């Protein structure tokens, strides 16, 4: 009987643990996910409630009103059409389900769900509609408008600028865009936010990750030279470099290279060899340390998860992966985070877009601050990559991004996409200046080489930032 009672106690411990697990997991999942759940397009309840609320305003970081409401609760946008178009993907429009826009993601604030009981009572007693909270974004609307003016007409693409020390997103552009005042004229696909929602091949910008994997796994890389013979047979695939045209008999060859030189020239051949030598598992581990295959659960910003293939792969696929092709899929924002982690001495910050929420009477409802996402590199490794990325801009494929007087670092990419005439032009870069900690990613789709198309846009954005006190 005594033993029985002891056993009962032990069993009771397990039963109580189950309850603790329920409460613990419940608290966890709600705190992590509830904003995501609330902003779901399936939230019929919130949509019905909007009729009783005058939505709060959406402001940029310097107080420019990007969206407000009239007395009926209808949205009012600023008079400048260029400004409206340049901020539409950050602000959102109620005409579309733009799930990573402020209009959706901060709906809980904008549409009055965070009102306290006394506030509700006050509105009810006065017989007024609820007034939602104002939301202040980290976005700089002037930067958005300027960057949008740099973008080539009629091209699809994306641009994002973030502070790599804090993760604040300053600029978020997606093309094609549309005018929120005239949503019926929006071209198809215009509501997609390419910065966060569009997954594409990173092309040569992924060589940053391959390089990082070398730093992690290959101890003797500094004493090694790699031979680029122009063509590399890997399994059933042939790795070639930009400029190669086999039918015309033209082959780009880089000859003998160090790793850094190969990075500066963005040599596919070398990075394919490296990928094969590292092996798929090691390369994937590094990619995953940068956030590939992770379920992004950021506080705000719904970001599509990046993919590094996990199934069994042929040598040809692995080789191309080292050079950033072959089933890799990543959003421009995530690549901007990759560049940011190099700039920020190996620490990747969580991207965020809401500075604070204010009550209708001007008080602070909630304010937010920087948060670390992960730490893919140590400071020494980050310094090696930083130096290599500086080399790309001073004497490699990215010289068009260079500015005199400041240290611009970067990496170009020209990603081949099936069914497209030209490559997607990528440029990742950052200012290696303590006073101006900004990183960016620019992608222009179907436009050509990253060095010639996107790097100049990046240079102008950097120069704008420096001349506007950033």
């Amino acid at each position, binding site marked *: 009987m005594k033993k*029985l009672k002891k056993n*009962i106690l032990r069993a009771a411990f397990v039963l109580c643990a189950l309850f603790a697990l329920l409460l613990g997991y*419940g608290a966890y999942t709600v705190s992590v996910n509830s904003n995501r759940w609330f902003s779901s397009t399936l939230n019929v*309840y919130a949509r019905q409630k909007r009729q009783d609320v005058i939505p709060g305003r959406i402001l940029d970081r310097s107080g420019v009103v990007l969206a407000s409401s009239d007395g009926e609760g209808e949205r009012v946008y600023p008079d400048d059409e260029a400004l409206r178009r340049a901020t539409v993907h950050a602000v959102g429009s109620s005409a579309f389900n733009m799930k990573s826009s402020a209009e959706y993601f901060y709906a809980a604030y904008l549409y009055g769900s965070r009102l306290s009981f006394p506030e509700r009572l006050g509105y009810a007693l006065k017989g007024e509609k609820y007034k939602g909270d104002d939301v202040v974004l980290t976005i700089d609307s002037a930067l958005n408008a300027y960057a949008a003016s740099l973008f080539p007409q009629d091209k699809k693409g994306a641009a994002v600028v973030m502070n790599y020390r804090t993760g604040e997103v300053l600029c978020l552009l997606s093309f094609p865009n549309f005018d929120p005042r005239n949503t019926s004229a929006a071209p198809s696909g215009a509501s997609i936010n390419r910065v966060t929602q569009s997954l594409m091949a990173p092309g040569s910008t992924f060589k940053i990750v391959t390089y990082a994997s070398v730093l992690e796994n290959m101890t003797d890389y500094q004493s090694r030279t790699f031979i680029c013979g122009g063509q590399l047979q890997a399994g059933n695939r042939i790795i070639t470099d930009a400029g190669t045209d086999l039918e015309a008999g033209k082959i780009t060859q880089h000859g003998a290279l160090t790793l850094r030189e190969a990075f500066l020239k963005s040599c596919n051949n070398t990075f394919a060899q490296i990928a094969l030598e590292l092996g798929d598992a090691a390369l994937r581990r590094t990619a995953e340390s940068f956030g590939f295959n992770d379920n992004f659960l950021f506080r705000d910003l719904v970001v599509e998860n990046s993919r590094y293939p996990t199934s069994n792969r042929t040598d040809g696929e692995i080789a191309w992966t080292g050079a950033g092709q072959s089933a890799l899929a990543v959003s421009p924002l995530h690549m901007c985070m990759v560049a940011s982690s190099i700039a920020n001495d190996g620490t990747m910050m969580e991207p965020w877009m809401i500075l604070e929420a204010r009550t209708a009477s001007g008080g602070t409802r909630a304010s937010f601050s920087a948060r670390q996402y992960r730490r893919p590199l140590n400071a020494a490794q980050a310094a090696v990559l930083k130096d290599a990325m500086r080399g790309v801009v001073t004497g490699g494929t990215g010289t068009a991004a260079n500015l005199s007087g400041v240290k611009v670092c970067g990496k170009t990419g020209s990603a081949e996409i099936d069914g497209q005439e030209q490559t997607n032009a990528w440029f990742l870069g950052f200012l290696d200046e303590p006073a101006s900690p900004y990183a960016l990613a620019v992608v222009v789709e179907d436009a050509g080489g990253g060095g010639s198309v996107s790097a100049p846009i990046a240079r102008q954005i950097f120069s704008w930032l420096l001349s506007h006190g950033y």
Partner: protein
Amino acid sequence: MAKNASRRRDPARGMMAASMVFFFVGFLLLAAHDGEWQSFLLALIVPLIIFGGTALLPRLFPADKLLLSLTNFLCALGVLMLYRISPQRGLNQAVNYGVGVGCMVLCAFLIRYVRSWKALTILMVGGSLVLLALPLLIGTEQNGAKNWIWIGSYSLQPSEIVKLALLLCVSFLLSQKKALLSILFGGACLALLMLQKDLGTALLYFGLCLVMLYVSTGSLLLVGAGLAGGAGAAVMGYQMFAHVKARLAIWQDPWQYTQGAGLQLVRSFVAIANGGLWGVGLGLGNAGNTTRAGGIPEAYNDFIYPVILHEFGLIFGAVVILMYLFIVIRAIMIARRSTSVFHALVSVGCAGLITLQTFVIIAGNIKLIPLTGVTLPFISYGGTSMVSSLCLIGFLQGVASRNKAGVDQDRALAMHGGGAP
């Protein structure tokens, strides 16, 4: 003097008074909303049932009042939520509640007065196997599992009743040191449930047997072997049944299946997020409204807990979970005070069943584990479920009353100086 002091401090009375007021106001709110006379009626009747179930019942036999008041609160909460979801179901559930309280008293008497369980056990073992085989022969399939039978216009889930028999039989067999027989019986029940494809209930039976085996034998080896067997069965179930595969896929990412079976989980998340800490208010939400947009399918059954979170909020939801926890802790206390192995095992079994069932369904609701269709004890809609949950409380009351009787006897003897206290 001493009696008055103890009465004032009795937490069960405070709890009862509070829940009577809570439900009186709750139904009045619903009445203000819909203006139906049934709502006003329930505003009076439900507090009365609570009063009867908590304050009057203990006059029939020495009952555990705290356990009664907790149980009554949860049952009444079920009636309130169901009435809010669909008045017809709420009224039905009020009847189920009344019948359940009656069955609870019967079960309490059963445990209190039956001295020899041998004949009954043989009867129950036979009856259980027949009952579990019935749905396979004449049952109907619901949500992939074939576990219901219809008698006239009444439907019955035999596994809910057999659950009670299993608890009593295994307790008895184990108290007689017949572990092998109890394993055989439990195994046979599990096999029949697997054939019905009712994996949620199979999980409950399995957990129950495991807890009781451990408590009576103290053998971790046995538990380990059981767990290994269970894992094997789970893998087999996954390979054999398409609906298990589908459920697992939905569990991994319900957002991919919002056009189909993942919708209820996603709707439940959205409902929880809308509710926030304090809820949207009783009768003001949409999650329970199965016919309107945004409602959760099966809101009255598997997904009643998210509806509670939606309208009453997360804090209240946590309190509901704590109430289940207190019921379980109370059951453990009863088990530890009991004077015979059989009664101790019955009480532990009740604690185990209530815990497992609450855990399996709420964890399924919040995507901690894959969803399996078991009911939330005391709250989910359904006569069989309500009756079987209240029967468990009846068993506990029976054991508690015997414990108390033992203590009273001792005290009487001690007062007369007849024996050691």
